[in-house]
């Protein structure tokens, strides 16, 4: 079956612009996660959704970052007024449900802020 998909695969944007990153989880997976992979910080958790609800937003690095999920499926991660330190690979993962289930990762979106 189809895995987690993310779009775009690459995004180059100018400092100060807003960007939207999209994640399509595996069909039937109710839990969705966003992570960021960067050279300086390694792999860090950003936010997760159970259904359309995001109970814990403390992992988002600043208030320029926001995420939403609608219909219990697709999620978008929005970064406003991008900065060079936002350059990273943004990874999305999904799991069957909340709790002890393995997470399946998508290919990521490589964001470069110039």
């Amino acid at each position, binding site marked *: 079956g189809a895995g987690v998909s993310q779009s775009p695969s690459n995004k180059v944007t100018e400092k100060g612009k807003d960007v939207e990153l999209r994640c399509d989880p595996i069909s039937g997976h109710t839990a969705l996660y966003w992570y960021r992979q960067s050279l300086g910080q390694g*792999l860090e958790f950003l936010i997760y959704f159970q259904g359309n609800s995001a109970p*814990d937003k403390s992992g988002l690095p600043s208030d320029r970052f926001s995420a939403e999920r609608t219909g219990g499926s697709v999620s978008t991660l929005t970064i406003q007024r991008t900065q060079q330190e936002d350059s990273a690979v943004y990874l999305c993962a999904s799991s069957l449900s909340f*709790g002890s289930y393995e*997470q*399946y990762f*998508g290919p990521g979106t490589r964001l470069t802020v110039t």
Partner: protein
Amino acid sequence: AQSVSQHNHHVILSEAASLELGCNYSYGGTVNLFWYVQYPGQHLQLLLKYFSGDPLVKGIKGFEAEFIKSKFSFNLRKPSVQWSDTAEYFCAVKDNAGNMLTFGGGTRLMVKP
């Protein structure tokens, strides 16, 4: 806060050599443990996982890991590596209090043919 340490950042081995990558975590309660692998140009894939039961878990491609609770460790092993094992390996931990994975810094493995 939870933390995960991978002590080897870069490992270079010849084919057929044995591999052991260290992973230690800080959380003292019940944990779920994972090893993920990222082959060059590919996305993260699950190698193996531990939730409960037998502390020696076997994964894909001949990898195994042993959970030693008293040492807060979950080391990855493979008796004989192949060139195709060249990749970056990440240890990850999830505790029962949260729902996200905390990753170690990763270990880049290069296997020379």
